[in-house]
């Protein structure tokens, strides 16, 4: 009869082994998707469908998120900067934060929540209803047909969404800064160009590209990993969103320190 402590240690060991096992499976999955990305036939129609789903269909929520984020952030910066009479810095501080962090990260979180979940649900449902087996039986590689368009589509769509997020966020910040707080428009714009450079925009775009890729990989991986019926699909969807968001936030940290050095 095992004691509580022994059971706990056993559980811990099992947990670690499961995690390693999962990491190995994930790595194996990632390498296979990379392999199948560069193997013909190239399914551009499926790719465009996915870019449309991830990109175009997310525009509305990106618009809402970015406009309010820009406006709120500008307002909060104003509250802080007013104390030291430096409210003309609203423009640059908001835009630097938007371009380097808020645009890629918030876009990533939106896409992880919306599209990562959808990917896991779609593929998971196909898994439990044997549609993936049907594809395999027909001689079609299910990774190539299902995963690759989604991964590549997310990698392409997210930086585009991030760029649009940045512009709309600027609009929101401008609205608050120039029209509400009444900062001079020229001062607002000129300070932005004084303190920002193209490297910051590039940093945001690079981050968004990496996030897009990771969200695609994670979403499709959890779809393929679904087991059991509806409950399994639900679990897979949930894991996809959670891991997608965590990955975006953690990778953001490492990317920031890496890109700050090289850009």
């Amino acid at each position, binding site marked *: 009869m095992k004691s509580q402590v022994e059971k706990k240690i056993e559980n811990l060991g099992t947990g670690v082994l499961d995690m390693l096992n999962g990491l190995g499976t994930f790595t194996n999955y990632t390498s296979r998707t990379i392999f199948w990305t560069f193997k013909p036939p190239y399914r551009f*129609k499926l790719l465009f469908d996915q870019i449309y789903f991830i990109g*175009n269909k997310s525009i509305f929520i990106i618009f809402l998120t970015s406009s309010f984020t820009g406006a709120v952030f500008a307002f909060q910066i104003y509250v802080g900067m007013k104390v*030291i009479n430096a409210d003309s810095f609203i423009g640059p501080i908001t835009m630097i934060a938007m371009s380097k962090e808020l645009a890629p990260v918030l876009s990533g979180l939106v896409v992880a929540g919306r599209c990562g979940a959808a990917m896991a649900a779609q593929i998971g449902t196909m898994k439990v209803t044997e549609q993936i087996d049907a594809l395999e039986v027909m001689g079609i590689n299910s990774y190539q047909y299902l995963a690759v368009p989604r991964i590549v589509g997310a990698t392409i769509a997210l930086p585009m969404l991030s*760029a649009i997020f940045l512009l709309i966020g600027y609009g929101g910040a401008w609205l608050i800064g120039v029209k509400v707080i009444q900062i001079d428009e020229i001062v607002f714009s000129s300070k932005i*160009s*004084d303190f920002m*450079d193209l490297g*910051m925009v590039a940093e945001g775009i690079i981050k968004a590209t990496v996030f897009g890729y990771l969200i695609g990989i994670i979403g499709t991986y959890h779809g393929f990993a679904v087991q059991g019926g509806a409950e399994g699909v639900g679990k897979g969807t949930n894991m996809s969103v959670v891991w997608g968001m965590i990955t975006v936030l953690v990778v953001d940290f490492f990317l920031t320190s890496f890109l700050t050095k090289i850009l």
Partner: protein
Amino acid sequence: MNPLKVGLLTLAAFASIVVMSLKITTNKSGFGEYTTYKTVLKDASGIFEKSSIKVAGINAGRIKSIELNGADGALITFEMLEGIKLTNNSRLKIKSVGFLGDKYLDIILGDQNADRLKPESFVMAEGGAGFEELTKDAGEVLKEVKEIAKTIKESLRDEQGRNMMKEIIANIHEMTGSLKRLSTGNEDKINQIVDEVKAISEQLAFETDRYQKDSLMSDLSKIGPILDKADAAVGDLKIIIADLKDGKGTVGKLLRDDAVVDQVSQTLSSVNRLVNRINNIEADIGLSTGANTRSGTDTRFDLDIYPAPERFFRLGIVTNEFGPQSESESDTYTSVNGGPESKKSVRTVDYSDFKFNFQIGRRIQRFGLRAGLIESTGGVGLDYFLPDWGIRTGIEMFDYQKDAGPNLRLMTEVKLWNVLFARVAGEDLISKDGSQSATISLGLRFSDQDLAALIGIFAR
């Protein structure tokens, strides 16, 4: 349909990137060729690689690298746009942007006439005026204020100190009251004084800045070599003065010998009289060109010299295709086969290209009478002047020919504007062979004052 919508999304994304890039790169030093320079700063804190370098507040370059340069400080390598000319006089300064103290390098270009610095050259750096300096100075001031406060506190400890303080305060109160009474009603004067003091101090600042072109200090800095030369000249001057005192040389004699001084004085008087007379001579120049209705162009140059207001001489050159001519007749005799000779006469008329005027004249009030050579023939002329209207009108008679009679010319000249005039003349008015014509000209007439002004401009 999806590829189209995806394409629109891609377009929107690119447009967003372009718009944001344009927003970011206004005021940037932008694209172009750059030249690398170096400088050494004692303290490069707050300065980073890729920090902007500004000229007159405009981004004109950026910092490439910052390295330690031993005990001298930090070696900054930076690049400036090719269009910005750095010279030996250019200076580099650390400045702060706003209260938060973000630093940048500011370049004062200096004298642009100096030679351009070669790439990789060093640019002089000056101490910064950033907020670190300010806070450092503020710290020192506060220290002194603290000491003063301590001293005041000690002096107020005893009765005598307090009484003195009360007296001082009372005096200050009285003084401020007087000042207030003085300033009330005199604000305008005080403002004027302040403005003048400000102007003076700005001027002083300018003059004392040796890097400003045309400033006193920059001029003074050029004086060094001049002073050396002056020193040598003074030495020579001493020797000369010694000789003069001894009456050596012409000048020495001039100074010591009375007879020589008298002679020189007489000569100078004569010269003075001559110069005065020359100064009193006035001149008037007229230059015109026009066209005659029968014969083509007519170009004239006249110089009127007035040694006295009532007397004048006129010298001039005229070119036209009518007027005086020279005639020659040549006879040619021919015989055919030894038969009787036949005579053939050929008359050749030459119109002179250049004709000369030389007349002596007299002015009587508004009339001018003159006689002499008119277009290389003898003639007389009478002019009438209306200076208030800028009009002169006249009549000339010259070039008498046996079968044609004299050429009677009637002319009127009108001042159009400043030195510009127009002339209309009727030629050959009493000619019997119907060769009357008209000449219309435009020209420039310079009076004595105009000539003096012109000479003054050229002399400058």
